[in-house]
């Protein structure tokens, strides 16, 4: 009933009420517009920062070799790192692109991409499959091509004073939006960029039929057994580890020598086990030992720690796991080592007859730490002294290289090739703009200097902070003014209505009931003012957003407030109106019903 009475009173004094509503909305509306501008402008900049992956990009400023393990370690920080891909040297990543008609040629930068690349995925792109590329808009315009067209990419190198060109076709999977990059660039899989770099470095790329050197894997050993007809003097023992690459020499008894060699040495011969520390022995190291013992009739038998390999014969079910040893009788002081390494050895593995493996082609799978190799081999059955499987020192030693670096099987070359050791750079995107700092710090702690949009992010944050401060200062002044105006008006209203409120008290209204009269009026008037201010805000916001439409992207607004903001603001205004009405309410409680009689 009190609320109804308060409403009736407001309607009755509509002119005064309207003036008050206008006065309050004149305070609220500018605050709404100010808040809308603050929220709209800063939020637009912030969302551009957040939404545009470019702002999360972290670019290396220094070139150094980043290993695969380094990338794996970085990828493990999923909360900070959204995407990271290796990059080759920039100079090796430029190609000449020719359109299908052959009339337009443009140099393009090759960029590595991979699944999850935010620059592509958030700029209307897709991650290209092998044989595909994604172009930036600038590149597509320059070549007058579109998604679905074919391109020919070409790399050039100089070999012995002659220019050579290697080309390969790609299909354009997508063209990125303008926002992505202003560069003329093609995004391709890592293998493509690696191939181009290999080609430019003079190496062969069998996948594209490009001739050149092959980075073939080479055998390495964990030690060697030296057999001599005569015992070596202490001085000779020292010679074995002097400038040979080996670091330790140890005489071994007959049984131990047999265990390592797989066969017993000639009776009366002396055996010495030479080993290296924390690295592998190469053929050159073995050759150095051979040279030291030249003329003494010594045998140098390379030795590897047995490798656990899985062998799968075509058509058979699961792999058979066996211990692979190097057959040491191929090496000798007469140059067998060179023979093993100089020509590509056939990957023959001799397996014990009792193993459930048939002779013929099989697949070898070898895993050492986090490195893995899979390669075709040829199985022979035969005598394997002291073991299950053995291969020539050259073949087993080449597999043994996997203990020290990545080796891959290249089917085009039918060879075990060295995988690259590292990459000169990377493409890296932080998970969020807030993670940019953390990733930057992480990299700089590793000595990797990087460039980020940190300053720009900080600038927007500063702007946000200052805008918030300015807003709250103005809002505070506005709120004080608004509350004062409402307080005075409601107080005056109680004074003006004193006679009638006295009558209500005389008629039996309780104090606490009468208190609701100014509070209800405060809420009603502020609600009216809020509604009017909201209408004014929407009109002005529309004008502002229309004026600045050219500077805004689609769905961006310079002046905007969400429904949540309105609700928070409404609750704030209502709360303040209750506070303002409290003074009037206190005045109402002091009214004396006897005044109703006396006023008459």
């Amino acid at each position, binding site marked *: 009933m009190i609320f109804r*009475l308060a409403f009736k009173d407001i309607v009755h004094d509509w002119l005064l009420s309207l003036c008050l509503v206008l006065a309050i909305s004149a305070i609220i509306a500018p605050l709404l517009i100010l808040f809308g501008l603050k929220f709209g402008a800063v939020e637009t900049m912030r969302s551009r920062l957040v939404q545009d992956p470019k702002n999360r990009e972290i670019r290396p400023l220094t070139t150094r070799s980043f290993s695969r393990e380094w990338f794996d370690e970085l990828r493990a920080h999923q909360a900070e790192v959204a995407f990271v891909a290796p990059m080759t040297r920039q100079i090796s990543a430029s190609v000449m692109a020719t359109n299908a008609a052959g009339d337009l040629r443009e140099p393009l930068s090759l960029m590595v991409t991979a699944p999850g690349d935010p620059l592509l995925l958030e700029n209307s792109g897709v991650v290209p499959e092998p044989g595909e590329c994604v172009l930036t808009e600038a590149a597509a315009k320059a070549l007058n091509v579109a998604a679905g067209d074919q391109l020919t990419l070409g790399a050039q190198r100089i070999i012995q004073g002659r220019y050579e060109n290697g080309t390969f076709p790609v299909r354009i999977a997508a063209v990125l939006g303008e926002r992505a990059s202003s560069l003329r660039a093609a995004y391709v899989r890592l293998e493509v960029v690696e191939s181009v770099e290999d080609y430019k470095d003079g190496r062969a790329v069998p996948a594209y039929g490009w001739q050149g050197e092959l980075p073939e894997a080479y055998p390495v050993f964990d030690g060697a057994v030296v057999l001599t007809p005569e015992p070596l003097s202490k001085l000779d023992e020292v010679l074995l580890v002097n400038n040979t690459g080996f670091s330790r020499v140890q005489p071994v008894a007959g049984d131990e020598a047999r265990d390592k060699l797989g066969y017993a040495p000639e009776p009366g011969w002396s055996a010495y086990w030479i080993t290296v520390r924390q690295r592998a022995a190469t053929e050159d190291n073995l050759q150095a030992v051979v040279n030291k013992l030249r003329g003494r009739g010594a045998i140098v038998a390379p030795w590897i720690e047995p490798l656990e390999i899985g062998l799968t014969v075509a058509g058979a079910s699961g792999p058979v796991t066996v211990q692979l040893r190097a057959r040491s009788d191929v090496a000798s002081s007469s140059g067998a080592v060179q023979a093993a390494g100089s020509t590509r050895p056939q990957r023959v593995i001799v397996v014990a007859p009792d193993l459930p493996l048939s002779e013929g082609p099989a697949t070898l799978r070898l895993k050492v730490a986090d490195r893995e190799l899979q390669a075709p081999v040829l199985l022979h059955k035969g005598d394997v002294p002291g073991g299950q499987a053995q291969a020539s020192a050259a073949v087993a030693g080449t597999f043994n290289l996997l203990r020290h670096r990545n080796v891959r099987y290249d089917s085009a070359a039918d060879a075990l090739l060295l995988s690259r050791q590292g990459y000169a750079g990377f493409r890296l995107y932080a998970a969020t703009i807030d993670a940019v700092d953390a990733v930057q710090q992480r990299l700089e702690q590793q000595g990797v200097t990087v460039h980020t949009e940190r300053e720009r992010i900080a600038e927007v944050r500063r702007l946000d902070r200052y805008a918030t401060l300015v807003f709250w200062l103005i809002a505070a002044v506005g709120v004080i003014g608004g509350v004062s105006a409402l307080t005075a008006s409601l107080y005056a209203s109680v004074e003006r209505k004193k006679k009638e409120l006295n009558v209500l008290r005389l*008629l039996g209204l309780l104090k606490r009931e009468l208190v609701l009269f100014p509070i209800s009026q405060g809420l009603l008037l502020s609600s009216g003012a809020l509604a009017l201010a909201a209408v004014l805000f929407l009109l002005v916001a529309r004008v502002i957003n229309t004026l600045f439409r050219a500077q805004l992207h689609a769905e961006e607004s310079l002046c905007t407030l969400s429904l949540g903001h309105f609700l928070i603001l409404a609750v704030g205004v209502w709360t303040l109106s209750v506070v303002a009405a409290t003074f009037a309410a206190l005045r109402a409680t002091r009214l004396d019903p006897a005044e109703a009689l006396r006023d008459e």
Partner: protein
Amino acid sequence: MTDVVYRLRDVEKRRSKGGVSFVLRIPELDVCRGEFCSVVGPSGCGKSTLLDMLALVMEPTRAGSFSVQVGPRGKPRVFEVPGLAENRAARIRRANIGYVLQSGGLLSFLSVRENIMLTAQISGVGVSRGEFNDLVGVLGLTDQLDKKPQHLSGGQRQRVAVARALIHRPMIILADEPTAAVDYPTALDIRDELHALAREMGAAVIMVTHDRSLVDQVSDRQVRFETVRTGRAETLATAFAETRVPAPVAGERLARPEVGA
């Protein structure tokens, strides 16, 4: 005390204003249900002070006994006025007392209909459409219901005030100079309507007026004041109540409207 709504014995109210003291003394006053009690006297004699105390908005300074008996006829409750809590007093007022103030005391922002229904709403008393129509019909307000009080004549405003005072069927009606602002014939009409309607519902009417001739014909009891100066700055007013037999004077009609007829 079955029908006595007010019972005052040796009640005194002392007030001071501007260094001048005023003492109102009421040796004895009983007001019964259905009774028309007039309070007459010149300005400043203490009529309003007495009315304030009867309206439960002012406490006596001293009281031998001062009680008000309200509630249903079968189960009346007696409340001692001295020390009565403010909220209790308000609740007694809203349910049991109707007021007719000098210039109506109507709320300007409510229509006539809303003004009349106000006391019913405050007291929570249900009023049927028939009851409402009968009351406003008797008071000649049927055509004025949607108007605002400020658009009525003085007499109409007072009739609205009478209707508002009666709509929730109170036991007591306090009328403070209800006819002061209207001409004499209208004053007589309002007096008669109030008297008749209150009697119809068995309510006690206590009407304050300075015009004794207006109430002589209807008063069952009349309170008069005798004022003496007891000092340089003190006035003592004593209110004497006397029981009367109302005797209409020839030529002055007494309306007897029938409610619900």
